[in-house]
């Protein structure tokens, strides 16, 4: 029971992080990052190969680069950094000159290709089989199978999610967030008003990448395995579905979406009695995800919790008196 609960909660924290990042990129800034999942994967692989011993250990049944056997929290910090550093090269190719829908398909293709490359290069990250036996953080000091450890891990993951939530809140409620939203609404006009759209997009891309990298590290530290099958491009679409359902541009909406869609679906199907041939339920799940996107975009495009309208407090009386000269002609 502890294992089940902590698993659900860690997944929730990871999905919340991912949805906050997607909401920041897509909801606030209008960037459709269809390669989001590779940022998460980059973080997970980084954390894995930094915390794993050399690949000759464990009988050498898997091959991978590095294997530095670093102790926590270095692998997590590195994962966050790698997620962030992956953003500029991709952003420089994709985000500068292409039309918004081109950007999206370029990143989609990138996601498919990255998965192909990793799958077909076993010496890099063990190919299709993926990495396993990834040491849990601090597993040399604590028993990672004890209830206390599981709960501590869960608490840590949730605390990180809360911290990132507040960071995201600061961003979207600031003048900077307003510039991002202005760019989303009309990029050409924003540029004509002095906004450096490329720089705005790049920073959001980097911040989102860092969050994605961290989320990957949290997940791989808990489930201890990571393989290409866990980061195929449709996984990104689940997160988009979550943000569209929850409400893009609203961080509470991102959290709600994360709990309803990825977490909710996973848990709901767990309790379904098995029916049909094997593979039918996952297929139907995907149909539902696609249907959710279409349904929400049609009936409620702004989601359950839409971006809120920002109303400024009325001016103080002094100001009113102070400006009688406001000319009216």
């Amino acid at each position: 029971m502890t294992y089940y609960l902590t698993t659900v909660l860690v997944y929730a924290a990871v999905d919340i992080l991912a949805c906050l990042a997607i909401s920041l990129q897509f909801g606030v800034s209008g960037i459709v990052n269809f390669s989001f999942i590779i940022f998460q994967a980059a973080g997970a692989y980084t954390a894995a190969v930094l915390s794993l011993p050399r690949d000759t250990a464990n009988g050498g049944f898997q091959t991978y680069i590095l294997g530095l056997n670093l102790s926590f929290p270095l692998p997590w910090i590195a994962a966050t950094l790698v997620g962030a550093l992956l953003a500029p090269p991709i952003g420089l190719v994709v985000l500068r000159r292409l039309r918004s829908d081109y950007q999206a398909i370029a990143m989609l293709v990138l996601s498919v290709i990255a998965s192909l490359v990793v799958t077909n290069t076993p010496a890099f990250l063990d190919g299709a089989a993926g990495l396993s036996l990834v040491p849990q953080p601090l597993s040399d000091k604590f028993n990672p199978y004890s209830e206390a450890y599981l709960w501590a891990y869960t608490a840590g993951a949730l605390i990180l999610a809360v911290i990132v939530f507040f960071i995201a809140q600061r961003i979207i409620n600031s003048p900077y967030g307003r510039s991002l939203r202005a760019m989303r609404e009309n990029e050409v006009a924003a540029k004509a008003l002095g906004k450096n759209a490329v720089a705005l997009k790049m920073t959001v891309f980097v911040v989102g990448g860092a969050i994605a990298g961290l989320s990957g590290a949290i997940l791989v530290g808990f489930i201890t395995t990571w393989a290409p099958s866990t980061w195929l491009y449709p996984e990104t679409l689940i997160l988009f579905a979550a943000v569209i359902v929850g409400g893009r541009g609203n961080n509470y909406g991102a959290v709600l979406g994360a709990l309803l869609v990825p977490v909710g679906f996973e848990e709901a199907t767990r309790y379904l009695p098995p029916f049909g041939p094997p593979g039918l339920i996952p297929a139907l799940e995907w149909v539902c995800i696609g249907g959710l996107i279409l349904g929400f975009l049609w009936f409620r495009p702004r989601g359950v919790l839409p971006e809120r309208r920002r109303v400024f407090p009325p001016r103080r009386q002094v100001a009113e008196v102070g400006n009688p000269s406001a000319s009216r002609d």
Partner: protein
Amino acid sequence: MSLIVAAFGFGLVSMSIIAISAVGFTMQFGITNMINLAYGQVMIASAYAAYALNNAGVSIWLSLPVGAIFGAVFSFLLNRLVYAPFQRKGTNLIGMVIISLAVSLVIANVMLPIVGYYSVSYHQDPGTTYHFGSIALTGEQILIIALAVVVMLAIYALLRFTRLGKAMRATAANPTLARNCGIPTARVVDLAWLITGALCGVAGTVAGMNSDSFSVASGSEFLIPIIAASILGGAGSPYGAMIGAVIIGEMTEISAAIISPEYKQVVAFAVLVLVMVLRPQGLLAKRGALAAAG
């Protein structure tokens, strides 16, 4: 060296298949301003439609028209029932891309339980193998190349000489203006989806014929060289897509011979990245989406 020449021969087949599919893909974009990411899945669905007939004992060449008709009707309905309503609602470009990806996911996973999870192969007779120096092509492969040439000429004739083709070009260049000039743009768009859908169906079936086997998962694999060829040529330009297909088809096959077949798609992607950095508008710059030849 002979290996590369042989690969060049395979490249001729690859480019033929990519050309048929990429012309359909890029015309959808040119005429309706819509990047249809479900294109690969419609290809696969059409390939399975042809397979149903083929599996019942009909020759694959006779099943090919069924694939074409299936692709045409499917694409037409897809636009009528999903894309067009969303576009009328004012959904922006980004929204439409997300919608087409969601549609792609739905098609793939509705198909899975119906057609199964395993790869299938057409029952076909590849025919005698003909040798041209180091190039070895089966009769079937030669027919695929011939089919592609016929299709390209037909598209050229359609756009160049027919009233429908001119109406399509006008609609692509400026739908509002075209409508004001009395062009029935709604009907033009319907016909465009039928024609490009048929191309999609043909492409899916011949792609199935040219590969040892195919499955639902092949859809997204098909899509990458198509996107690469379309963007390389200049999105929306059918002639650009043809040139793109030639380059991508040959490059992927020759690199497969030199490096490794697993990296075929990676080469297509590398070309795509280069184009995006150096010339995002593609080789034939987009002018009114469907630029006239000559």
